């Protein structure tokens, strides 16, 4: 086991930690803990990555462990996969998660299937900045998570808070399976949080209740959790008590948490920034119909992005994305049942 190299992690509790800092801490601590952990990607070394997530890794761990590559996403994922066959645990960065489409074949056909087909586990993490709201335009704002949620063999994580990002990334690096780790770039520096002390781990596949409520459930993940929380505040003033659940992991889904909450509130609204058709709301609706249909007092509602590419102009993007107003309006309608 690689664990016999382990050095204990004695990180103190900290306040005001951003998501970028949390992810960097996770990488630092895991690379320190286990020399089998390496980082690979474009401009992740001297420059520290396009969003400075990997800043400082090169100086500390050197070029053999912080591997800067040509602009070649298929080569990045292929090499990470090959390295994992010798027991390494590479963390590959997509400069923007949109570029993951360039290595779609490598991930979905080789990485995801290796364990099932020929018993070769691929313990790699593919991480990168995703999501809109920062006017990045159609090629720097995507939420491509559902392509991969539809791929057996992968795990898909999309955290909404710095503490979760750190704890889940550390769990992902230690996981024996390929994990896609989406980092919402809108959240990178906009939220700060207290970071627990020590070797902070968050289990993969477990949702979190962000706010308790009795009238209806909002299921969401990533940046839309914060939008949903704002909506819940407003709705509380109107007397509607909303339960907000942060999925955190999209594959495997925490089915129990979904069913339990729906049985409690009897109404479900799913909010996601991904586009509507083929978004996870449809899958969740099916899960609820299979597991808690008798408990529903109203139709399963969803607030999502519209079925278009992410437009560039702020007015267009605002129209494209879900926001607090849209969530509040949908929740009000649902609460009437």
């Amino acid at each position: 086991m690689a664990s016999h190299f382990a050095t204990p992690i004695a990180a103190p509790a900290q306040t005001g930690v951003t998501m970028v800092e949390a992810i960097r801490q996770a990488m630092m601590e895991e690379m320190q803990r286990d020399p089998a952990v390496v980082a690979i990607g474009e401009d992740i070394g001297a420059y520290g990555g396009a969003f400075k997530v990997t800043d400082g890794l090169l100086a500390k761990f050197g070029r053999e462990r912080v591997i800067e590559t040509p602009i070649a996403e298929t080569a990045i994922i292929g090499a990470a996969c090959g390295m994992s066959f010798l027991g390494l645990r590479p963390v590959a960065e997509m400069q923007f998660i949109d570029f993951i489409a360039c290595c779609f074949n490598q991930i979905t056909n080789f990485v995801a299937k290796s364990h099932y087909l020929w018993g070769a586990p691929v313990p790699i993490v593919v991480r990168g900045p995703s999501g809109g709201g920062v006017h990045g335009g159609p090629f720097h704002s995507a939420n491509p998570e559902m392509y991969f949620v539809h791929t057996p063999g992968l795990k898909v994580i999309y955290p909404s808070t710095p503490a979760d990002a750190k704890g889940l990334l550390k769990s992902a690096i230690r996981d024996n399976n390929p994990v896609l780790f989406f980092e919402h770039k809108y959240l990178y520096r906009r939220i700060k949080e207290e970071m627990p002390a020590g070797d902070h781990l968050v289990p993969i596949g477990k949702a979190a209740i962000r706010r308790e409520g009795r009238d209806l459930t909002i299921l969401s993940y990533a940046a839309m959790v914060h939008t949903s929380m704002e909506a819940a505040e407003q709705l509380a003033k109107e007397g509607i008590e909303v339960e907000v659940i942060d999925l955190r992991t999209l594959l495997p889904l925490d089915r129990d948490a979904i069913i339990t909450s729906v049985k409690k509130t009897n109404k479900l609204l799913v909010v996601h920034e991904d586009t509507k058709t083929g978004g996870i709301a449809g899958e969740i609706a099916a899960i609820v119909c299979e597991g808690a249909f008798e408990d529903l007092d109203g139709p399963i509602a969803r607030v999502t992005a519209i079925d278009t590419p992410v437009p560039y102009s702020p007015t267009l993007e605002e129209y494209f994305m879900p926001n607090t107003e849209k969530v509040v309006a949908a929740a009000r309608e649902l609460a009437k049942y």
Partner: protein
Amino acid sequence: MSQPLTREQHLNLYYYMQLNRQLEERMVRLFRQNKIVGGLYSSLGQEAVSVGTASAVEKRDWIAPMIRNIGALLVKGVPPRDIFTQHMAKYTSPTKGKDGTSHFGDLKDLHIVSPISMLGDLIPVMTGVAMAGRYLGQNIVALTWIGDGGSSTGAFHEGLGLAAAQKAPFVLIVENNQWAYSTPVSRQVPVKNLADRAVAYGIQSSIVDGNDVVAVFNNTKYAVEECRAGRGPRLIEVKTMRMRGHAQHDPAEYVPKEMFDFWKSRDPIVLYEKFLTDNKIWDAKTKSELDAKIEKLLDVDQQFAEDSPMPPPEFAAEGVYCDGCHDISAEFKRPMSEVTPPGSGIDITYKLSDFPAGMGDAASVLKSANGGHSQHQKPQQKPQQQAGAPRPVLHANPARQPNTVQQAKPAQPQPAPRPAVAPVPPKPVPPIYPEDEFVEPERAAEPEGPRVPFGRGPKDKAFRDTAEAKVYSRVQKGRNSAAPANGNSKNFTPKSPAKNFSKSGGAKSFGKQGGKSQGKGGR
């Protein structure tokens, strides 16, 4: 010259080539009996490539075969029963029926990475294997194969680019079997030799007769040793011929008969048997003993496969995730202190050792009034003999040289690498494909004159009336040479290969043309 092969090595090469062929012949019979579940992809005529290359790597080295590299699997230690059971989708197969053909691997003992059908993907994967092996201090070499067809994929170029940038101990065998399914090489790749592509990556390459197993072995052995010495990656193009269709369903009617005839006369096993006899390496008794051994082994393994059960249906639901069923560990064969802080720490600013004097050629190019391009050297004709090429530097341990970054060192003229083993002298490459290069279209030089503004053309009435229209060459040419059968348009049509084949008429002229190309190519 490389070490001559021992008698045992010679007999092993024969044994595995013959085992490969006999195994596949049995599978053809099983296919006809409907006992093979999916497709069957023949490597008939290509045995020397699989066996010669795989025999040149060591046990610790890693390989990733393509579907036709069954011989390589056998050499690496896969028993024939695994090939039978895989094709028959049995529960006893390495993948327990989850996948077929040669799609399986072994990470722990045999160091084989499973192929997938998307060709080219294994190149970055094996580059990663090579990089990991170097990082762990294991001194291994990674080797994989790609076909002429697969060499057009993006993954080929991305992977080779990364391997070259990383100076990875990685050997790529480009198995040029003349056909990608039904498309000949000349319809896919506008270069004469696929090995020429290595120049673009700044890596060394060679070309070898893929039906000469000893040449394949020696060439690969040299490449593997170069990589192990830190002078990788290397590319080897082996020229051979796929003697069957893409798979059993394909009668390969698109292949000219002359081409099959030519290559049939160069059957790698027949050639090698003659070589062994002529050089008195074996006698009839040895041959019959080896053949009997093969028959016996295949009898037992085929029976095992036929008697094996199919997997239980519900087994389909198992094994998507590794839930602790595998122990994942990295075997470090170097001091851990080199790769963990503080030993791993470096100064991240790139250093130039003697800037700007060290820019060498680049400096003179920048000063030159003519600018850059005319100053560039012409690409070398023979990448394997590049003189004065900077010696590829071992991926040094940065911990030991914190102030030196290899990439930032400008290329200084250095003596050519002195190989540990002398390169195998290039053998005459057999004619493989008749002259069928695209005819460079003769384009008339555009006359001097004002260019037609974008969006304005002959149908634009306002334009048609202006003086500019008179010098718009393309319009005028088109009008003057009204008939489509005019010589002008003919020039733009590349000759079709089929046409050329029928014209070349017979094996004799085929061979002659090949001889001509040999003389020109100088290989």
